């Protein structure tokens, strides 16, 4: 089992990067929300790094990222934001079962915060966020079909992967987990 806090640091760093590139494409109101989200993710990343330092472990190495689809307007910016958030819901929900006590509470609450942001960016509400059909929607191949659920999407629903860290420029990248 990998160190849960390392997975958090990796996922949150990816989100910080994503918000950095998507925020300029948003309108003023959404831009403020994106800045708040980026601040929250940076704080979560730093918390994870501090936790790793407390365990005498090094934080994950910095990586470059690939955006999995063309990011060229407000709609795709929101799509990327929602995708990052729902991916983090999956990270936190998975890790919650690997830890105990206050760490579990922290991861559970973090999964909820990400879920809220995902929905506000247009992610279709889901019975099991980040799993099942949500996972279909974040198929790294980008070929997964859109969910056929009956919920109306509040805006465009993510259909492909969040920015994937790549171990080297030009590589195919890796997943957030």
């Amino acid at each position, binding site marked *: 089992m990998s160190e849960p806090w390392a997975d958090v640091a990796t996922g949150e760093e990816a989100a910080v990067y994503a918000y950095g590139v998507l925020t300029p494409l948003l309108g003023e109101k959404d831009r403020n929300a994106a800045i708040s989200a980026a601040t929250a993710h940076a704080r979560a990343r730093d918390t994870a790094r501090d936790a790793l330092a407390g365990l005498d472990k090094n934080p994950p190495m910095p990586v470059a990222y690939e955006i999995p689809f063309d990011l060229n307007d407000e709609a795709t910016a929101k799509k990327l934001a929602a995708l990052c958030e729902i991916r983090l*819901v999956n990270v936190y*929900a998975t890790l*919650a*079962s690997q830890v105990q006590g*206050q760490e579990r509470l922290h991861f*559970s609450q973090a999964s909820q915060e990400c879920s809220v942001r995902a929905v506000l960016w247009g992610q279709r509400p889901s019975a099991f*966020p980040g799993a099942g059909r949500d996972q279909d929607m974040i198929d790294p191949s980008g070929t997964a079909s859109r969910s056929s659920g009956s*919920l109306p999407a509040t805006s465009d629903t993510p259909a492909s992967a969040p920015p994937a860290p790549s171990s080297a420029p030009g590589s195919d990248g890796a997943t957030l987990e």
Partner: protein
Amino acid sequence: MVSRNIVSRRAVLGGLAGGLAVASVAGCSGPIATFGAPDPDDAALRLTAASERNLIAAYEAAIVAIPTLASDLNPIAEQHRQHLAALGDVESPPSGSETFPAEDRTGTLKALRMMERAAAKERSTAAVAIAAPAFVEIVTRIGASEAGHAAYLTTVAK
């Protein structure tokens, strides 16, 4: 699958396996609970199931009171039914009797939003005391779902 008053951990994991492909059942080879030795996760299981039943009843009452909300609320109610199904065939206390005044759209949405937020908070607290990792994950995802529902309801209200 479920004894009269005892819920086995297998019941939970069976529900998980049917609803999600996320849980490893390795190490959970059989029912943990026996008569006289309740499964420590039973309390969380029953609490969560009862809460889901209450939420389903609340959405159904809201739709009766304000039929124009049906298209927005039915899918959310269905997701709570999926939560309940994932928990397995669990006995729990009868659902509450939430009622909503007819045509109070704003008040109804606000009440549902508060119920979802309370449920999400309840899931986080419950997850801390759960022993079975697969059950922790399902309760965590249910909580994330409910937090998302609360956010969704703010968009419906606009």
